[in-house]
């Protein structure tokens, strides 16, 4: 610790890299250790938590815009990264073959950020409260009369739920989106603090059904909660997927180390490690041979405007 306090911050004198990440510590720390072992570059990480909600690393990066302290922002979702990119916080990184990506929604057209690993939005049910033949198969059915007062989702104003709703706004258009919000209002859906809270309360039986991210659902199942995960709309559009993102800061204090980290991270091998750990469930690369449920997503850059519009409508209606 003392060496940390007294240490010099110039790149040439130390082999280190500063990474701000919202990827959960339990997963990210393992990737950092592996990177350290392979390159000898010491990773100094700053982690975020779900509890910090909106006032976390994104705000810290914005505050530090004129004098960035971080080299890398490794985010568990794409919207905040796209928003920071729009504010010109990131440096383009061109040493990558974008042909490897399954979709152009998984990287920035200006090379300012790149996707790594995917999660999906899934329905979860308490297996002790909902019979197998009654599992909802479509997202729309969650708002139907059958499930009134029974569904919990994380607050639609924050996190991946906000991204999901912005994408729904984009896909449905304003008129249908308003109709959807009205249905949700009538269905008396409960809004909770975060996806992990939804997962816990569904697991405890407070709510029979919930809508969460696939990593939360799998963590709950691993922890022994009586929940089942349902990838919905498999005969239609599929589930909504959320891609993890990584970007290099403009004027990063350790640019060479930052480039090495991006090179290291954006490989199918490291992505597979993330999948094995449970941080993400599916690959963004073409080489992937894993079987995926049907999914859809939108370009995060496109969703930026939709985020504000959907937020305003939700505030008015919900």
């Amino acid at each position, binding site marked *: *610790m003392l060496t*940390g*306090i*007294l240490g*010099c*911050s110039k790149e040439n004198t130390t082999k280190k890299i*500063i990474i*701000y990440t919202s990827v*959960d*510590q*339990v997963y990210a720390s393992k990737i950092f250790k592996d990177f350290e072992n392979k390159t000898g570059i*010491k*990773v*100094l*990480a*700053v*982690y*975020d*938590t779900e*509890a*910090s*909600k*909106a*006032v*976390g*690393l994104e*705000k*810290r990066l*914005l*505050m*530090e815009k004129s004098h960035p*302290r*971080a080299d890398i922002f490794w985010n568990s979702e794409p919207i905040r990264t796209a*928003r920071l990119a729009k*504010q010109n916080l990131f440096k383009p990184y061109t040493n990558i073959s974008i042909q490897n990506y399954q979709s152009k929604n998984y990287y920035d057209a200006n090379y300012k950020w790149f996707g790594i690993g995917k999660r999906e939005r899934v329905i979860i049910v308490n297996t002790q409260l909902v019979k197998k033949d009654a599992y909802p198969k479509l997202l729309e059915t969650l708002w139907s009369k059958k499930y009134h007062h029974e569904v*919990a989702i994380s*607050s639609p*104003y*924050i996190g991946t739920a*906000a991204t999901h709703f912005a994408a729904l706004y984009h896909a449905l258009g304003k008129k249908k989106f308003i109709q959807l919000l009205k249905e949700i209002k009538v269905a008396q859906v409960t*809004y*909770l*603090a*975060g996806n*992990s*809270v939804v997962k*816990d*309360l569904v697991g*405890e039986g*407070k709510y029979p059904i919930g809508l969460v991210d696939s990593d*939360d659902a799998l*963590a709950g199942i*691993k*922890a022994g*909660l009586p929940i089942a995960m349902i990838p919905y709309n498999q005969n239609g559009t599929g589930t909504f997927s959320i891609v993890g993102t990584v970007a290099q800061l403009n004027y990063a204090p350790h640019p060479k180390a930052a480039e090495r980290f991006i090179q290291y991270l954006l490989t199918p091998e490291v992505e597979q490690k993330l999948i094995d750990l449970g941080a993400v469930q599916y690959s963004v690369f073409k080489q992937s041979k894993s079987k995926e449920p049907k999914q859809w997503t939108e370009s995060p850059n496109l969703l930026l405007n939709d*985020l*504000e519009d959907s*937020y305003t409508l939700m*505030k008015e209606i*919900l």
Partner: protein
Amino acid sequence: MRLLTYSVLVLFSLPMLILCTYLSIGIYEGANILHSFMQDSFLVALKQSIILSSFSTVLALMAGLLFAKAFCTLKHTVLQTLYLLVLVVLFMIQPIMILSVAKQVKLFGTLNPLSQSITIATLHLLPIATLFWISIYRYIQTEALSIAHYLSTTKWSTYRYIIFPQIRLRIGLAFLFLFVLVFIDQEVPSILGYRTYTEELLSQMTLMEEMQTIVLSALPSFMLVGLLSLGIIFGFNKNAVSFSNTISLNIQSDTPFGKITLAALYLWLGAMLFILLKTSLAVSIKILFNNNIEVILQTLSVAVAVSLCTLVLSILVQHMLKQYASRTVHVIWACVLLCYLLLPHSLISLSLLNIYQKIGIFSSVGDFVIFFLGYVFVLLPIAFLLLFLFAMQEKKDYFLDFFPVPIYQRWLKITLPKQWAVWTIIFLILMTFTLNELSVSILLVPPGFETMIVKIYNLLHYGDKANIAFLSLVQILFLIGCFAILSFLSKKAIR
């Protein structure tokens, strides 16, 4: 010394001035304040927060009064020390841990989210409410009570005209302190599905990128608690913004009531510790130790340093204010403190980060300084309020006029032994706040430095109960260890 005092006051006010500047810019730029007040979701959340905070505070104060009365029936110093120890240790158990224990009680599951939130908040506040009552109860002027007894005044008249005027400001401030503690906490209510104002505020900040808009969004809570504070200060005691105090009440002999209460508190603590131990032993101690040793050492060393520094700083400034400052300075200081108390800690952290960026001299040392200052700024108002609420009576030592002794000897020989017990308790409470502080841990933490609270929240996401219980257990045992060492060092027992 006077210069030092005013320098500390100015330094401490800096983040507040920055926030006020952003607020003015926000208003000047035409941000719609009324709009944020009038949103349905905001009003509902505000109402829910007020209900939760008021009920929890009142219940904690009522129950705390009973427990404090029980303490005052204990005569033996050892029993009193044990009583204070269990109160401090119980206060340091995080609400999230109380929740995980409460969830194992069937009856708790049948309550609605509001009742559950009130239960957890009340259980969390009860120890500190009891400590407040002990401090309030023990320092009522005995002379006035004796005269009242001699004149055979009724109990009600004694309370109405003698006791209440002496303690009403303290009760008011204790209420305010507990109210704010519940009001700014959103984690447990949101886990239980009870939407609070703080959660609403955080969700509103999602789309905000400009500092002035973020600050502006905190204005309603600022005004709410600000008005409450002013009401308490000026309504309850117009001349009471000072740190002077009253005289100790005599303690009667031991009673079964006191001993039974003490046993009940230890039983509760024992149950908590047992559950934590049982949960953590699901994984081998060696693995737990290896997984967490670094974060434990880092966090605890910072927490000790920050708490000690804040306590010393607040004692010094309090002393200087008493010596040199006018009543106006006292009032300004009290207002600044109260403003800090109610500000979301994320805003204090962001404004410090802003100052750091403006200064523009960056180094690893600077990172640690700003991190350290973040904790100090968050803790300082709490330390001041605790010093006021736990203040001891100050008698004029006339003999010192005849036999002057150097100031350091006066501190060492007179003040330190007299205040040791109170400072120990405040130090431990500050440690508790440091260990549970999340905003500073995310927004100001130097890269590569891990804190226990961030780790606990990350682990909570995955239901890693063993590691969470182990980290909580370490915190509790560390505090008990600190208490034991400080008690051992103290030659003067707690009275």
